[in-house]
């Protein structure tokens, strides 16, 4: 071994560990603050099991979208259409079940097929026609939003459960339900987290994603099907956004074409807080999950403290800046 490669100093090791688990530490800090300050009388509002379940449920939607966004950002792209896709798929699900009277399974298949179609559109136009993903997905966002409003005549469709006409199949309510006290969306989020962590770490696809994000030319010259991998990434991102739309409809018991506005920004924020590089090639699913949790707890905490909605936005913006500044590459 070369003599120039020596053991790192203790300080350096600590710093490496700190930066490696930065998002975990950030989550712990936010959690601690929330559990200390959200106390009314002798009751800890934040640590109430019911409240915690609420937090987990509310972050699941953003978390699922953000995992798809992580993939897109890893290949150096961006997907602005996910928020509009949530609106479109939620509306479509409500319309198909309530107005058209379809059972749950065909409804899910159609809705997810729509989401996949948008993902394929984003992927194909950005790779085969060489349009930047920012522009393609901006267009897709507009198309999806327009389609949702066109479909429902611009109004939300309420979902009531029952067997009579004009009612949704009761089975669909499972996505808004709890299993042994745990919200079903949170269970879905956990499963999706596991699947995509494994996908990125242990599969060809994952290696290809990181290689493309790190050096696309090199990946291409090594025989990686760059366009194919990119299209698959956008497709998975669309699929996850569509699935989030289904959960959204079940949780709110309605499908509104105006829902999901700005969700793409929340997802990007979660990815950024999770430590991924916007230039691509660097980032992990678990980081994004941490990012989504931090954002969710923050929202919940500010809500419990009755802080003005607009003030919440300002605080959230500042937190994003601080988080990203803290984990930027150390200047050499």
């Amino acid at each position, binding site marked *: *071994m*070369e*003599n*120039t*490669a*020596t*053991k*790192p100093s203790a300080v*350096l090791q600590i710093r*490496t560990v700190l930066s490696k688990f930065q998002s975990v530490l950030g989550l712990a800090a936010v959690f601690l603050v929330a559990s200390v300050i959200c106390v009314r009388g002798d009751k800890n509002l934040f640590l109430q099991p019911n409240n915690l379940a609420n937090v987990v449920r509310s972050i699941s939607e953003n978390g699922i979208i953000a995992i798809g966004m992580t993939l897109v950002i890893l290949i150096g792209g961006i997907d602005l259409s996910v928020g509009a896709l949530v609106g479109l798929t939620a509306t479509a699900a409500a319309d198909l079940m309530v107005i058209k009277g379809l059972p749950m399974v065909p409804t899910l298949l159609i809705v997810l097929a729509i989401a996949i179609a948008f993902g394929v559109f984003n992927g194909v136009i950005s790779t085969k026609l060489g349009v930047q993903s920012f522009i393609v997905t901006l267009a897709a966002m507009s198309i999806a939003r327009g389609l949702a409003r066109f479909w429902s005549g611009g109004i939300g469709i309420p979902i009531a459960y029952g067997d009579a006409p004009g009612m949704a199949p009761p089975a669909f309510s499972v996505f808004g339900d709890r299993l042994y006290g745990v919200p079903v969306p949170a269970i879905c989020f956990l499963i999706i987290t596991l699947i995509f962590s494994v996908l990125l770490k*242990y*599969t*060809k*696809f994952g*290696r*290809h994603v*990181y*290689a493309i*994000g*790190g*050096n696309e*030319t*090199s*990946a*291409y*010259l*090594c*025989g*990686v*099907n760059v366009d194919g991998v990119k299209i698959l990434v956008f497709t998975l991102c669309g699929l996850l956004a569509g699935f989030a739309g289904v959960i959204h409809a079940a949780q709110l018991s309605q499908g509104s074409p105006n829902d999901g506005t700005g969700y793409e920004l929340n997802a990007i924020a979660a990815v950024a807080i999770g430590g991924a590089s916007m230039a691509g*090639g*660097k980032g992990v699913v678990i980081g994004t999950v941490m990012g989504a949790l931090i954002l969710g707890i923050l929202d919940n905490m500010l809500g419990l403290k009755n802080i003005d909605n607009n003030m919440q936005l300002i605080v959230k913006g500042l937190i994003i800046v601080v988080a990203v500044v803290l984990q930027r590459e150390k*200047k*050499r």
Partner: protein
Amino acid sequence: MDKNTILTMQGIVKSFGVVRAVTNGHLELKKGEVHALVGANGAGKSTLINILSGSLRPDAGIISYNGESTVIPSPLRARALGIGKIHQELQLVPELSVGENLFLGREPRTKLGFVHYDKLFADTAAIMASFDLKVSPKTKVKELRVGEQQLVEIAKATSLNARIVIMDEPTSALSKHETKKLFDVVRHLKSDGVSVIYITHRMEEVFEITDRITVMRDGAYIATVETAVTTREDLVRMMVGHDLAKTSTPAQTSAGAEILRVEDMCLTFPPFYKKANLQHISFSLHSGEVLGIAGLMGAGRTELFECLFGLHARAMSGQIRIDGKQVSLRSPQDAIRHKIALLTEDRKGQGLVLSRSIGENISLPILKALSSWIFVNMKRERPLWRRQMENMQIKAPSFHTLAGHLSGGNQQKVVIGRWLLTDPRILLLDEPTRGIDVGAKEEVYQIISTLSKAGKGILVVSSELPELLDICDRILTFCEGRLTGEFARSEANQEVLLNAATLSTSFH
């Protein structure tokens, strides 16, 4: 301290994570001297120079400039001190004109605060004239040849009233004529009292242009010597730490069956495209043969390799035959399937994923074979990583080390190690020893010799004619996209090759 000394760097230390790039950097520079900084890859030259030019901050050490201790926290500060650097990789803005590039960030202004373009272009023309560069100041940089771009870069650095000019491998993209011009500029700078730090792997340049030489090895200072009283052998011994075995001439291998045949290959790009066209190229390559390709910049050597690797299927016409059968190479995947491997000229830009580990880089082209269903079989890839680290003698703490943390020579070994795992039959090596130190060069020659004995067909592009003459069985010469000559090893020498590489008529 000597009054003639403009700069001293002492006890410089710099680490990147766990890799210690410089352990004891030392440099003393006199006014008006040309000072060579030499050392093998990974010796720490670039790191030391990046510290001097403000791109990197040292962990420890003292820099004194004009007798005063200084810190150089940024490239801007270095520029203000009068330290100019010409980068190995060009740092010009391709879409801007020559003049706009020269005065970027310090444009002359009119009274109203707008850019004074008349003055800018007039000043540029004057500077260009002193460099004997015949291009209009209004030409966009992207339309210049690489050699011309390099001269613009040098003009930019020297026009900043620099007292110290750092040149990092300045001639790697220059033709002989342009190199001569560069040396005139260096002598001119010297007579103006400017000090030049000159980094190169080309020994003949060290002896032609420099006054003193500082040698580094493994991140540490070894010695500073007067060029006039030093021999090439002394220098090499200091660089590698021991005597180098005499360059072994590979045994003449008897060429086997024809493995690759190119017939009437033409490559046509739109006008002003930055790549060279090819016109009616025909040749063949035999198994066990090392076939060299000589030519100047823009001769189409790299483009030929790109065609053979499936990169220009649309712009290309003509036939490629492997084992006598015509093949269609429309993508790198096709090429890899036909057992072709390409070692690109630009390791960092095209070769490696710098943000990933050595191991992942090695696996990249063979991931499919290493996987069961969608999962990468790590039990199978780890031993391969270990084997290639040993076979290629890659110096790194482990195969988890990021490719971006390696020195140029080690990066090249990673790329070679990667492609050998694809079990290639035809290897396309584009400048395989560019920017690599003498020791690593020897290792690369050994690898080439071993591969040809194993019956591979090898095409080598190199700008260094002695290298081609040393390792090739046969050499083709290219000039401006045409095949202008073919020479057996016995009938080739530098003069003959250079002559053919500047011929204006095709050879058939």
